[in-house]
C-alpha cells in the first residue's frame, strides 16, 4: 500500500521528528513496503476474536496515592540539558 509524501510528513509531525527531504522519500518507500507486508493480516477473519494486549492477564494493580519526595533531586537535575536553579529551561512554549 503506497503512502504519499504528505502522509509521511504528517506522521513525522505527529511523531515530532524533523525529517530532511531525502529522508522523507526513503521513509515513504520503506514504510510502503513494510505496510504492504503487514496487510497480509487482512487475509485472516478476526471478527469474533478478542484482542490480546497482555499474555498473562493480571488485572490492574493499584497502590495508595501517596506523595513521596525523591531523595536525590540533584541527581535528576544534573542530567538536564539546560537548567536554571531547580528548573528545566526550554525555549518559549507559545510560538507566533
Amino acid at each position, binding site marked *: 500500500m503506497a503512502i504519499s509524501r504528505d502522509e509521511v510528513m504528517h506522521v513525522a509531525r505527529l511523531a515530532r521528528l524533523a525529517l530532511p527531504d531525502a529522508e522523507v522519500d526513503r521513509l515513504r518507500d520503506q514504510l510502503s513496503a513494510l505496510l504492504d507486508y503487514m496487510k497480509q493480516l487482512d487475509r485472516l477473519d478476526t471478527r469474533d476474536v478478542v484482542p490480546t494486549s497482555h499474555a498473562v492477564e493480571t488485572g490492574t494493580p493499584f497502590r495508595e496515592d501517596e506523595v513521596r519526595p525523591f531523595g536525590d533531586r540533584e*541527581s535528576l537535575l544534573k542530567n538536564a*540539558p539546560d537548567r536554571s536553579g531547580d528548573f528545566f529551561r526550554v525555549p518559549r512554549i507559545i510560538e507566533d
Partner: protein
Amino acid sequence: MAQAPIHEWTLLEAARKVREKEISSRELTAAILERIDRLDPKVNSYVTVLPERAASQAAACDEEQARGSLRGPLHGVPVGLKDIFCTRGVRTTCGSRILHNFDPPYDAAVAETVRAAGAVLLGKHNMDEFAMGSSTETSHFGPSRNPWDLSRIPGGSSGGTAAAVSAGMCFAGVGTDTGGSIRQPASLCGVVGMNQAGPVTRTVADAAALLGVIAGYDRRDSTCVDVPVPDYLAAASRPVAGLRVGLPKEYFEGGGLSPDVKKAVERALAGLTGQGATVVEVSLPHTSFALSTYYLIAPAEASSNLARYDGVRYGHRAEGASGVVEMMSRTRAEGFGAEVKRRVMIGTYALSAGYYEAFYGKAQKVRTLIRRDFDAAFSKADVLLTPTAPTPAFRLGEKTGDPLTMYLSDIFTIPCNLAGIPGISVPCGLSAEGLPIGAQLLSNHFREETLFSAAGAVERAIRLPRVAPVEG
C-alpha cells in the same frame, strides 16, 4: 589435568571458587578486566567498562567475605548488563545518541537484584539502539562483532551481551528479549540465552542459577505476575525420559531455513530422544503472520514510549531552536538513528486516527490466534523444539539496507513472545564454516523447569567449545 583459564570458568564455578576462597574477587575481576582491555577493541561488546568501580566493588566483596559474610549466590563474580538497564550513577545509553550523556539517578530492578546477590558490575553491554535491531549494527556506538568471526554480526539486539559472554569477557550477562533479542544473538554466538528476565550464559546451569537470582515479583512493574520461583538449577539436571517434544512443522518448512541449521536442530532432537524423550508433531498454523503482528505491535508501543525523549529533562538537546516544538523535533531527529525513526514512524502511523483498528487492533486480534496455536500445541507436547534463527551469523552490512530481510532473522523467536511463553536457546552445533547454531525450546506459561530440563539434556548430548576462538 590442567586447570581451565579463568575466563573459561562457568558462572557457577567462578562463584564457588570465590566462596571457597580458591580465588579472590579482586583477582577474578582483574583477570576479566584484562581480557576486556585486550579483546574488546576488536569485539566492541561494551559501551562502558568500569575498571575502577569493578575493582573497588570486588575489594569490598573480599573484605566482607574476610569478615565472614557473603552477599548472595553471585558474591564477588563479575558480570555485565545490557546498556538498556538503568544503573545508578553509571552512564546508560540504550545504544542511542539521544542518551549518550545520561547518568540515571536510580537502578533498574535487575541491576538492584544482581548487586544484592553479590555480583560485581564490569560494565554495560552494547546493543541495537533502543533494542531495535537483529544485528547490533544500529548502535550509536558502532556495531559489535561476533567473536567466532569478526566479519560477522553477533545478532541483536542483545548482541553485545552475547558477544561478551561468548568471548569470556564476563561470566554472565543480562539482556532483554521482546522479539528474540536474547535468543537470536545467543544462537549466533554459541551461548545460552533465555527470553524470561534475560540470562545470557555459557551453560544451561548458569542460566538456571542466574534466573533464580533475578526472577521474582517486582511491585514496580504493573505487568509482573506474583508466582513462586522454583529451583531452576535442580531442574537443569533432571532426566527427560517420557518428555513429549513437539516439532512445529511450520518452523521446518519454507526456503529460509539453512540446511546447516536444520541438521543441527535434528541433532538436538536426537540428543533428547536418546535420553528417552518422545516426539510428537504439532502445528502452529498462524506462524507466518507473527512477523507482521509483532512489527505492528512493538513499534506502536515503542513510538508512544519513546515520546519521553524530547530533550527537556535529560539526554541530547538540539541547539538553537526558536520554539519548543522545533527543539523537540530537531532533538529527536538528531538523537535517533534510522531504525528507531522507521519504527517510530510505523508505530505512529499504525496508531493514528483512521488506521488504529486496521493495524494495531487487527494485530492484537491475530496475537490471540497465535496464542491459541500454542495452547493447542501444549495440549499434546510438554516442550517445543525449533531452530532459534534461520541461519548462522550473517556478515556486517549484509542486511542493513533492507528492513524486512533483517526482520526475518527473528521469525522463529517472535511467536513465543507474542504468546508470552518462555523460550531458551541452547547451542546445538556448528555450521560447515564453524559458526555456532542454536536450538530453541519453548514451554507453556510458567513451565521454565521443563525448559531447563530439556535444554540441559541437549547440552549433555552436544558438547561445543564454551568460549569463542576470538584470539585466533
